[in-house]
């Protein structure tokens, strides 16, 4: 009671602060903070060489390379096409625009396992899309990239959308009056304004892809050293009762996620600063 009052910066006549904050902190601790700390505490019971061996074994390193590489490639493709999709949705009028706009959120709403089996069926050798392609997608690293692209798709579009909607014609008119071509206006005026949001969307898609499991495991084929992602490796270690090994890899991924989270927070602050100007 006294403690929570001391946190208040300003006195308020509204009731319920102690109860609301107290419950929030208790629930947050029980569900998120204490269990997450278990992962870190577990690795402290390992010796340093054992930890180092667990997180740098060749199979683990191959999984990092695939997970980070495919996530990066997927986020990059999403940044480019996300910008195009968002531009088209905000600026142009075409039949079915509202439906398309709503469907962009599909990867948020569709369970990952459903997306996984659908993509696998489509991109396998005799699938609708796979049979048209000259190279194999399902059961290769390319398949991992396909699944991660699907998962990350809404992030760039949804982060860019409010920024593009706020971009009124004035600056573009000014650029045109000053003699800029449309391409120059885009490169020198529009792109700098949307860059923070574009980077935020990229980072969000990348972060989401790093941890993705459900949509990837069906299409990846999961060959060790070739198409095995880190989350699957964690599960494999757990199933072999190698709990310390699984936890050590999980801690590496958690640290990567937290660093990304900090970067995303910074980018979002930058986006707000840009918009506020």
């Amino acid at each position, binding site marked *: 009671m006294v403690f*929570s009052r001391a*946190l*208040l910066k300003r006195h*308020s*006549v*509204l*009731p319920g*602060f102690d*109860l609301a*904050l107290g*419950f*929030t*902190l208790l*629930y*947050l601790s029980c*569900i*998120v903070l*204490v269990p*997450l700390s278990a*992962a870190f505490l577990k690795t402290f019971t390992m010796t340093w060489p054992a930890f180092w061996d667990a997180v740098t074994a060749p199979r683990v390193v191959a999984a990092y390379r695939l997970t980070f590489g495919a996530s990066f490639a997927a986020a990059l493709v999403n940044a480019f*096409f996300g910008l*195009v*999709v968002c531009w088209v949705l905000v600026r*142009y009028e075409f039949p079915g625009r*509202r439906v398309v706009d*709503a*469907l*962009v*959120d*599909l990867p948020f*709403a*569709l*369970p*990952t*396992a*459903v997306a996984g*089996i*659908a*993509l696998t*069926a*489509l991109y396998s050798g005799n699938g609708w899309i796979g049979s048209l392609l000259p190279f194999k997608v399902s059961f290769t690293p390319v398949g991992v990239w396909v699944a991660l692209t699907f998962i990350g*798709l809404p992030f760039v579009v949804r982060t860019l959308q409010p920024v593009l909607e706020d971009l009124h014609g004035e600056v573009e*008119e000014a650029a*045109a*009056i000053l003699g800029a071509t*449309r391409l120059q206006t885009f490169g020198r005026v529009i792109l700098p304004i949307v860059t923070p949001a574009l980077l935020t969307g990229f980072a969000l898609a990348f*972060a989401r892809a790093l*941890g*993705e*499991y*459900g949509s990837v495991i069906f299409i990846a084929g999961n060959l060790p050293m070739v198409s095995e992602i880190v*989350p*699957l490796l*964690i599960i494999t270690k*757990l199933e072999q009762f190698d*709990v310390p090994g699984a*936890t050590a890899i999980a801690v590496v*991924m958690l640290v990567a996620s937290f660093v990304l*989270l900090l970067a995303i*927070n910074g980018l979002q602050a930058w986006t707000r600063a840009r918009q506020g100007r």
Partner: protein
Amino acid sequence: MSAVAIVAAPPRVSEATTEPAWVRRVLIAVALAFLALFLFVPLVAVFAEALKKGVAVYLAAIVEPDALAAIRLTIVAAAISVPLNCVFGVAAAWAIAKFDFRGKNLLLTLIDLPFSVSPVIAGLIFVLVFGLQGWFGEWLRDHDLKIIFALPGIVIATIFITFPFVARELIPLMQAQGIEQEEAARVLGASGWQIFRRVTLPNVRWALLYGVILCNARAMGEFGAVSVVSGHIRGQTNTMPLHIEILYNEYQFAAAFAVASLLAGLALLTLVLKIVVERRVAAQAGGATR
């Protein structure tokens, strides 16, 4: 627009701040082709594959006992975890949006934390806490309580995964709405509960509904975290996504897609409700705050 039209002929104005028609057409085509390849075709494929072998096979796959058990378990897990996260979301939003206190930004970041944790790691941490080798493992075994590989584990992993959804929907809206109305109610003598029920709740009910819908969609579809803690016992600890995985790995593709089509239908329903709710929120806020 009309003021500009007087100064210059309309075609030239639109030339200056938009692209030539062919560029527009190419961009629309590129965007739609990309979305078709990665979104629309996979969605259609779920239903096409589900009905490939006919309606009879489709229905048989859904009313099969293991499928029904999975559906029941999925609904039970969501029915427990969504209300809990809903209460948490309201409490967190009340504290964060209506009061000014130290550490608020830290709290906001911590609430978002589950979004940046891999579902597999979310499952793993509960194994570390409640599993046989975990903190409470021996105590739970001695008292004959089962959390991992049982319903409580599935529920708690689902709660973790869907933790931020309701709070995330409510906080920005309640912050934008300020506290003047609540303060007025307080001055007029309303109790805390009356303020919440008569003033705050009507103002945020559509956003709350949308948060609950999103939370529910994610809870019913969660795969990675539940996969780690469930133990995959057929008919007992298999949720719908896990049931889909088992059917798929047994090459029962039509059955796997039949169950998947139910979840895809839920996803589509979620998107429709999202549009409805967004319109209500915009109408309620007068289009100003959102």
